[in-house]
Every structure is written in structure tokens, then in C-alpha cells.
């Protein structure tokens, strides 16, 4: 199989970086976006682009750079995300909007930018990285859960819109994963989370990356509009 052009947003660490590395192992040309700090690595074939997905001009610039270097993006992984947890009664509109803007509208921005060339070339793969809380809900995560649930509706709508052009759109819904995002959770809370997961542990980022690369693979050509949980059974299929 010829190497593909892959773009992973939020690819400087965690699930995004693990996904980028896995695509590289498969022989693809991979670009990642980061907001504050590029991933470590000298002489790295990874193309690292500073891009805040809340900025349309940043998004346009990142895509233009990839296109200039390698051509149009054939596989898009919309992974960039932020949290601003808090109970609803203490969640101001800014905390709400920031999370929606980065996690949901950010995915819209990159998908919209990527879809044009995918439609024209009659192929492409889009994977949205959602979360188990999208469908389970999460106390203290109303903004994050709403944004992540929004990705399911976004993904399935795009799956329908783009199906006739051979472009598939899917969603991965990870449970707790050992990343910086989870590192801020207290020890007691971590024990609670672990206890709630039937498989009794936290996932490695590579385990989510494997699901994403599968959905982007030729073997997954007949899979579209799916929500694939990678959550140790926490959501039991939801």
C-alpha cells in the first residue's frame, strides 16, 4: 500500500502522539498539530505544526503546509481536546464555550478543511476522538461530555454526507487512558475510575491508537458512522 498523508490534531502527546507514531510504523507520512509544545524528538520525520484548532486561520495554515509538502490530507484524526472540569453550578459560560470551541468546533474546522480534497479524490478517512463520557455523562464534565457527544452527531452526519465519495467517518470513544489529561486526577478518584472499568485498569495510549489506525485502514473500508469504544468495558458498547 502506498504511504498516505495523515494529519493528527493534538499530536504532541497522549493519544494523538501514540496515533501518529503508529501511522509512521505503518509507513505513512504523518503531520501533527500542537498548541503549546511540539513533541520531543530530533531528526524526526514527524511534521510538527503549531496550530490552535480554535483558530480557522491556524487550521488553514497547517493544512496548507501539509499540502505544500506532501499533497492533500488523506487521513484526518481530529484528536485535539481540552478540559475545564467543574460542576454545572460553578461552570461559567467561558468554561463551557472554550471546551465546545476546541473539542467540537475545532473538529468541525479541520473536517471541513479536509473534506474538500477527499471528496474530489473520492477517498479519505476521518476519525474523531470522542470519549466514554459522551454517552455515559460525567459529573463535572458537562462541557466536555457535551462536546464529545457532539462529535458523534457530527461524525455520523458526515459519514452520510461523504459516503457516496468513498470517504468514511468514524468515532473512537476511549475510556480512561494514561495521558497528561488524566494525570491531574487525584489518587482516590483514580481508584474509583479503575474500579468502575470491568477490565480493571487504565488504557495505554497505544491501545486507542490501534483502534484509530484500524478505522483509517483499507480493512475498515466498510465501516462508517461507527462509534468504537476503547474503554475496558466501562460503557459496555455505548
Amino acid at each position, binding site marked *: 500500500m502506498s504511504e498516505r498523508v495523515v494529519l493528527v490534531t493534538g499530536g504532541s502527546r497522549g493519544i494523538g502522539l501514540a496515533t501518529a507514531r503508529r501511522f509512521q510504523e505503518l509507513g505513512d507520512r504523518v503531520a501533527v498539530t500542537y498548541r503549546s509544545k511540539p513533541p520531543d524528538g530530533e531528526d524526526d520525520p514527524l511534521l510538527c505544526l503549531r496550530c490552535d484548532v480554535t483558530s480557522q486561520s491556524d487550521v488553514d495554515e497547517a493544512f496548507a503546509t501539509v499540502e505544500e509538502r506532501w499533497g492533500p490530507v488523506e487521513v484526518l484524526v481530529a484528536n485535539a481536546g481540552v478540559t475545564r472540569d467543574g460542576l454545572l453550578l460553578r461552570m461559567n459560560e467561558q468554561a463551557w464555550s472554550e471546551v465546545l470551541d476546541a473539542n467540537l468546533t475545532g473538529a468541525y474546522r479541520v473536517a471541513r478543511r479536509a473534506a*474538500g480534497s477527499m*471528496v*474530489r479524490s473520492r477517498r479519505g478517512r476521518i476519525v474523531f476522538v470522542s470519549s466514554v463520557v459522551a454517552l455515559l455523562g460525567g459529573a463535572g464534565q458537562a462541557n466536555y461530555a457535551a462536546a464529545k457527544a457532539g462529535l458523534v452527531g457530527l461524525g455520523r452526519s458526515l459519514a452520510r*454526507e*461523504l459516503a*457516496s*465519495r468513498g470517504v468514511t467517518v468514524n468515532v473512537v470513544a476511549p475510556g480512561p487512558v494514561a495521558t497528561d489529561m488524566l494525570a491531574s486526577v487525584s489518587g482516590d478518584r483514580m481508584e474509583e475510575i479503575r474500579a468502575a472499568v470491568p477490565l480493571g485498569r487504565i488504557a495505554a495510549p497505544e491501545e486507542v491508537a490501534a483502534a484509530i489506525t484500524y478505522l483509517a485502514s483499507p480493512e475498515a473500508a466498510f465501516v462508517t458512522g461507527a462509534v468504537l469504544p476503547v474503554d475496558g468495558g466501562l460503557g459496555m458498547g455505548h
Partner: protein
Amino acid sequence: MDNEAAFDKFKTCTVEVLQVEPEKVTLDARFGDDLDADSLDLVELVMALEEAFNITVDESELEGVETVEQAFKLVSSKA
């Protein structure tokens, strides 16, 4: 640009995006019935025309546009 040159350009775009025979792109051709275009084809065509003619077309202006003639009039009124 005179009208004929503009229509040639319009036709080139249409042939390229919709993958149809040039002789099918007549003024009275209907995008859906005669040119076999679906809604996504039309979106692609509008984007290609916007680029070719350096214009922007608002979604609301596309309502009721069903024939090549209607679309060409809309485009040439802006170019």
C-alpha cells in the same frame, strides 16, 4: 470577459466537476435530471465556479437554481 468566453469557462468547470460530456452542458440542461448531479456534486461545482470566477455565492442565492442557464446567470451577474 464577454458572455461567450464566460460560458466556455463555466462549461469547462461543469464538465470537469460533474464528469459529463461537454455537449450535455446546454443552457436548458437540468443539473439533477440531465447531468445526473447529486447535492454534493452541486456543492463541488459551486466551489469550483467560485474559484474560477473569483466570486462568492451565498447559500440563499442557490435556492431554486436547477438549470445550467439559471446557474450561469447567477455566476455571470457577479463576475
